[in-house]
């Protein structure tokens, strides 16, 4: 099934969900065409391929669309059997990864987004919640790393959780610069800090991370837009 390989990814350069899929495709060594979408003016293709959510990312494999980043990642792992595995074979290890990937996307990232688009009391409350969730994550992932800080080798062999984590929290210094707070503190979250640092040093991650200034500018824009909308 993977023999005829026409793969395209509809995404945006600034979207961490798009980034997840790019990292997965590159980790597996799958050639693909990246279609940059303008979310203010969505292409007819995007609306055709993802009529339910009308969002990026969408992977199109031999004309068949798959939407939702975590669904896409598992599809990639199951379809391309050669190359590194994104998920291990053991059902319990897979369950742990799925649980924490879900936590990262549905809880941590959502709270982080709220911190980015709010101010005053709402932001203060969101920051407190963020730190609590980061602490929960730090405690929770200790089971995954019984020997302490994760050792990522330089072979670019990222697993699913590595990919989700570094897409969403890899650029934490961007958030810290724009918001003026330390989100991932090496003292409060030593495991998470070390893990992110190792991931950010990988050649593949560096290659796919947009320039710091560009990300800072887009986060400023996103924050200002959100604050203006909520004030209106």
């Amino acid at each position, binding site marked *: 099934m993977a023999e005829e390989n026409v793969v395209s990814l509809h995404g945006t350069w600034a979207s961490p969900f798009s980034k997840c899929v790019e990292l997965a495709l590159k980790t597996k060594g799958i050639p693909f065409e990246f279609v940059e979408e303008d979310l203010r003016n969505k292409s007819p293709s995007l609306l055709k391929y993802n009529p339910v959510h009308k969002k990026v990312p969408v992977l199109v494999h031999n004309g068949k669309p798959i939407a*939702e980043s975590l*669904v896409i990642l598992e*599809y990639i792992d*199951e379809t391309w059997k050669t190359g590194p595995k994104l998920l291990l074979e053991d059902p319990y290890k*897979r*369950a742990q990864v799925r649980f924490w990937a879900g936590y990262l996307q549905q809880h941590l990232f959502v709270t982080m987004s709220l911190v980015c688009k709010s101010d005053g009391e709402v932001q203060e409350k969101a920051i407190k919640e963020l730190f609590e969730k980061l602490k929960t994550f730090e*405690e*929770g992932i200790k089971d995954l790393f019984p020997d302490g800080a994760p050792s990522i080798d330089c072979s670019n062999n990222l697993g699913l959780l590595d990919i989700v984590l570094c897409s969403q929290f890899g650029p934490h210094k961007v958030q810290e610069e724009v918001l003026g707070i330390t989100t991932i503190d090496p003292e409060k979250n030593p495991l998470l800090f070390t893990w992110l640092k190792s991931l950010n040093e990988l050649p593949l991650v560096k290659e796919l991370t947009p320039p710091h200034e560009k990300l800072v500018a887009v986060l400023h824009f996103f924050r200002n837009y959100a604050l203006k909308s909520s004030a209106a």
Partner: protein
Amino acid sequence: MAEEEVKLYGTWRSPYSRRVEIALKLKGVQHKYYEEDLTNKSPALLKYNPVHKKIPVLVHGEKVIAESHVILEYIDETWKGYNILPKDPCEKAKARFWARFIDEKCIPALKKACASIAEEREKAVEEACELLQLLEDELKHKKYFGGDCIGLVDIVANFISHWLKVVQEVVGVELLTIKKFPRLCEWSEHFVCHHAVKDCLPPKEKLLAVFHSHYGSATTSKC
């Protein structure tokens, strides 16, 4: 490994908990069930799910798994036999997509429509029906979302087949009707009679009582 003891922590009225029961039944897995009182959570639940402190939680030997979607996939991968998810990666991806859609979009919109009153209700009902229409269209002419046999999407849609009907009756809102969604209604009739599902549904009278007390004060304060 698959022979180790299986325990399920849940509640009689939770569709999420009942999903796991359906999956275990489909696979023929014997398990011990522990009914939780969510107003007074057991030390076991708090130990097994310290992150969310919620049910369902599946304990298989020493392994603990939380979150219904994660549990359903674990069950499918651990015990052979019945396929809850399709084997084909593309069909599997579609199933996961629709399962997420139901939980992340559909059910919250349905609950919102049921809880809203007065001017907000019409808009909330309209939005919920738009989402139900997507499921109606996805069902096409299949007996189940999984085709001839029930699968992940059917199991995750259990709320629609049973709980929704009860809430609708209590709050007097028209969401899932034969006129608007004939296929979904027919699916629902087949689903609730399925051998693995029929004993995994809370008794209607008990649910009615719970929802009357939950939604009762909201509906009587209509202006």
